[in-house]
């Protein structure tokens, strides 16, 4: 962890440290909610270590707490996590191309590490930031989960702290520079409209995947195609 940390520029270390406490607090609320839902103390930690995807973890625990079926909960959470496949296509060589780098780096691929890495121009900076973000949030998320499970319901509601606004705002700050490019911006806007329109109608996770239809703006006009193959 320390050697990863040294490769990150000081300004980015500060940015990363802004997210770490927020991840710890949300992790604590996950641990507390899971235990309140009747899970044994070690189970939220098992989820946080092995699944390491906040949205999916809250979803399965929420469904179980509401008395829903386990199979439906797991399938729903997997749909929510399907976005990691296209994330991996984009991040691919950024995490490193050796087998160990791919095996470990893939597990550290979360929304925040992808957004931080994609916000870098220099590939070496992108690799450093990807690993630092993934490792730091893995540690803080898991420490938070364990603390929350042990503390139980002593904790208040993290929404009262506005943390549910902190994460989307952080991601927005990271993607904003890439939206200066017109085609990316158009694709993203179209995708966001599709996702929002689909949210009341489809199960969680599906609307975000549907946003990929925004990529149609990249399809060139027929003449452009001929140019590309000439």
């Amino acid at each position, binding site marked *: 962890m320390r050697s990863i940390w040294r490769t990150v520029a000081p300004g980015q270390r*500060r940015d990363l440290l802004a997210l770490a406490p927020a991840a710890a607090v949300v992790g604590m609320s996950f641990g507390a909610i899971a235990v309140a839902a009747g899970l044994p103390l070690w189970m939220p930690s098992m989820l946080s270590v092995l699944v390491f995807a906040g949205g999916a973890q809250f979803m399965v625990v929420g469904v179980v707490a509401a008395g829903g079926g386990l199979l439906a909960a797991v399938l729903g959470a997997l749909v929510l996590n399907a976005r990691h496949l296209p994330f991996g296509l984009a991040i691919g060589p950024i995490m490193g191309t050796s087998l160990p780098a791919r095996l470990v780096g893939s597990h550290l691929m979360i929304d925040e590490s992808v957004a931080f890495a994609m916000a870098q121009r220099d590939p070496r900076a992108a690799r450093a930031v990807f690993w630092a973000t993934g490792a730091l949030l893995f540690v803080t998320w898991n420490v938070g989960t364990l603390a929350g499970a042990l503390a139980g319901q002593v904790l208040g509601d993290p929404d009262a702290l506005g943390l549910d606004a*902190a994460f989307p*705002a952080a991601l927005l700050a990271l993607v904003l520079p890439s939206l200066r490019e017109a085609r990316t911006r158009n694709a993203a806007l179209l995708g966001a409209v599709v996702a929002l329109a689909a949210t009341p109608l489809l199960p969680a996770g599906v609307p975000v995947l549907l946003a990929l239809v925004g990529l149609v703006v990249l399809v060139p006009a027929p003449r452009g195609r001929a140019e590309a193959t000439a």
Partner: protein
Amino acid sequence: MTVTAILVLAVGTYAFRIAGPLLRARMARAAARRAARPEARSPVARGGEPEVGGGVAAEDAEVGLPPRVTEAMSTAATVLLVALIATAALTDGPSFAGVALPAGVVTGGVLAWRKAPFVVVVVAAAVVTAGLRALGVP
């Protein structure tokens, strides 16, 4: 909740995560091999001379993949992130999220656009949302 359910979720999630990098490496190798064949007149060959049989080197330098393809992959990630942001900021389950949450995210977005430091963006978003909720705004 059972251990089996957690393991199924963990393995499935990891499969989604590792599929992307492996698939991209495979595509890069295939494209590099195509470009290395002298009879191939692929546009990717313009990017530089790939080493013949240098699968790993080609993959590392990404000589093989056409820029159009890598650009589409990056754009796809940005599109997904923006859709995540939009749904996280504006919806709560299937319904509208209220006012406090989007107000905080928009505040953060405006500050980021005005080049405010990242820490300021994150803290301001949380403070605005928390403040509005404390005042009773949904």
